[in-house]
């Protein structure tokens, strides 16, 4: 590995003894010997297996749930429904005061997406749990469903989630997160060219090799140990405490070893119900997603739609940028209101633009709830922004990399969010990229710096 120490040489201490040096990973010896203990490697005597009965409908009212046949099935110990969950309606970001609580641990009266958890079957073997799950009778009244964000925002669209009352998240700023900087209309009026483009993405599943799950052991003293592959340990503990109405001191979470997460194991879905099951049965409980559940049930990255309108001058300066972003939360919030907010914070990208207008909406549809994934709220936006940048460069006949040098933010520039830029390194990254990719740019760009005089 080569460290280019000539960049920022005057502002950085050069005593780098660790960076750039290979150091053994602490967990590798366990990995190569097969000794690393993942949650599912905690195989406990008398362990019960939890299988979820799931909604076959995208949107339906539940008239009744009959668990009597399932309960009689050989090997079945218990079947849980909404009434068994102490605080059944929750939302995970309530920990940072982002409400309302809008999701059920087990469906109560209604299902809002295909695959929603309705009843939890606990049995001595996985097979018995699967067989009994097929015997839980749920009487549904199918309701109209909406899968498209723009359809969902139209008047008269089916209401996805009553806890919100409308098909978008209501921020304190209103129906969307907003950034207003300068005067975009004036900017567009002054521009030599205007380009408006729409970009869309589909949901993306993290597909970790180890599926989501947990193993819970009652400790005999009203305390429960939860072995889990959550990526959000204390976040999960606190939410489990709320859902179970149980002090956090009764919950002992063991984790940190995750067989691939990529941001997909932060939704507090399996732990509360498994702890409840262990509490109500007095037995250890294992709840592990099947591969199909991992692909279909666990939250994906949200589908997004991004509309970007830019005003650009012939000399390469972007003078106005208007972005409208839509994040498809699916049926429930999970992390998506935050994802949409991140989008508002991320646009207009790493560029200095004098006139900016941003609206980002978090929209509810009857699709699988989306949530976190590596750079959620930002990654799709970056795709859209950088494709747009290439199109703008082409529009004015300019080299796409030189076009970015012209617009790159530099120290001291005021960002659209009214934070002055500091510690920028985009110019230097692009200079290095120009060399590495053998994509030469004019000398004046290679002579630029992220520093501005007086900044």
């Amino acid at each position, binding site marked *: 590995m080569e460290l280019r120490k000539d960049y920022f040489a005057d502002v950085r201490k050069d005593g780098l003894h660790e960076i750039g040096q290979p150091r053994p990973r602490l967990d590798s010896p366990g990995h190569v010997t097969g000794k690393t203990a993942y949650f599912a490697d905690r195989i406990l005597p008398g362990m019960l297996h939890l299988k979820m009965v799931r909604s076959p409908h995208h949107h339906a009212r539940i008239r009744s749930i009959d668990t009597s046949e399932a309960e009689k099935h050989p090997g079945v110990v218990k079947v849980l429904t909404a009434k068994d969950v102490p605080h059944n309606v929750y939302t995970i970001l309530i920990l940072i005061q982002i409400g309302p609580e809008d999701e059920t641990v087990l469906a109560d009266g209604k299902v809002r997406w295909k695959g929603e958890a309705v009843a939890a079957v606990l049995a001595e073997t996985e*097979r018995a749990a*699967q*067989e009994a799950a097929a015997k839980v009778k749920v009487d549904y009244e199918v309701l109209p469903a909406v899968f498209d964000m723009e359809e969902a925002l139209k008047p008269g669209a089916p209401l996805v989630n009553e806890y919100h009352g409308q098909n978008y998240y209501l921020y304190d700023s209103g129906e969307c997160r907003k950034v207003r900087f300068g005067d975009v209309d004036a900017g567009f009026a002054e521009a030599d060219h205007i380009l408006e483009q729409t970009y869309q993405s589909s949901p993306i599943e993290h597909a970790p090799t180890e599926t989501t799950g947990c193993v819970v052991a009652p400790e005999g003293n009203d305390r429960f140990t939860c072995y889990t592959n959550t990526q959000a340990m204390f976040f999960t503990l606190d939410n489990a405490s709320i859902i179970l109405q149980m002090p956090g001191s009764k919950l002992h979470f063991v984790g940190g070893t995750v067989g691939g997460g990529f941001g997909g194991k932060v939704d507090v879905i399996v732990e509360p119900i498994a702890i409840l099951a262990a509490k109500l049965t007095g037995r250890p409980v294992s709840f592990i997603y*099947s591969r*199909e559940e991992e692909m279909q049930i666990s939250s994906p990255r949200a589908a997004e739609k991004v509309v970007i309108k830019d005003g650009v001058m012939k000399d390469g300066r972007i003078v106005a940028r208007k972005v409208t972003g839509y994040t498809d939360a699916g049926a429930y919030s999970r992390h998506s209101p935050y994802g949409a907010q991140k989008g508002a914070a991320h646009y207009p990208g790493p560029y200095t633009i004098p006139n900016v207008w941003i609206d980002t909406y978090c929209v509810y549809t009857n699709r699988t709830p989306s949530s976190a994934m590596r750079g959620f709220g930002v990654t799709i936006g970056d795709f859209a922004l950088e494709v747009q940048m290439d199109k703008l460069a082409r529009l004015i006949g300019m080299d796409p990399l030189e076009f970015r040098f012209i617009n790159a933010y530099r120290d001291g520039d005021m960002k659209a969010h009214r934070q002055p830029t500091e510690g920028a390194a985009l110019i230097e990254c692009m200079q290095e990229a120009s060399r590495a990719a053998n994509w030469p740019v004019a000398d004046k760009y290679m002579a630029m710096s992220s520093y501005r005089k007086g900044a």
Partner: protein
Amino acid sequence: MSLALQTFSTVKDANAALQASGTRYLGGGTLVVRAANEGDVSVSSLVRVTEPSLSAVSVSGGKARLGASVTMAAITRHPELAALAPAARAVGGPAIRNMATVGGNLFAPAPYGDFAVALLALNATVAVEDGEMPVETFLAGRDTSRAVVTAVSLSLPEAESFRFLKVSRVKPKGVSVLSIAALLQRTADGTVTSARIAHGCMADRSMRAKAAEKALLGCKLTPEEIAPALAVAGEDITPITDPIASAWYRAEVLPVHLGRLLLS
């Protein structure tokens, strides 16, 4: 009902046991154990046979007899089955090939069943306890088959006459977008005198491309002369839609890949 395995030493006894409802035959396990793992509770009993002939390969006089339990890996390693090796190697990764069997592949639903595509183009014969039938007939009726497949027999193709192609999105190994096998007899000047083409993923099981076969007769394998065959390659197909590809996509790329195979 839990899942239980019954082991028999003869095909006859296994066939008797297979008549019970909820019973399926266990070959390499890549289909039926998978189904059980995924929560298919319709199967409660598995049957297997240990009769050694099921694992035997015999080759003589240009003909091969593959026992139904012969694995894909065994075919790839067999010195006299080199013509079949590309199709056998197209199945799964190394571990799957050590398990997946000739007999099982006949039952594999699309997008699986790449080896059966080759068997269909080669006009193989499928043997059960009380007789034999063409693989085409067998595939058409496989959903109601209640007899253990014992072997598959075929004439080994001359090296130049048989071509096989599997298209997947992941390299070097992935699930089929489609697969195509073609058995072509040609005269010395390259004119096609007979053609038998099978494809996978163009229905829930391997099917023949009869219109394309017919259109190839009398043609030389040049872009101009095969064009009519490519134009009718999609006749009578009902491609599957799955996470790998949509039916539309499969139908669109079928002639492209058939063309590449014929011109290769």
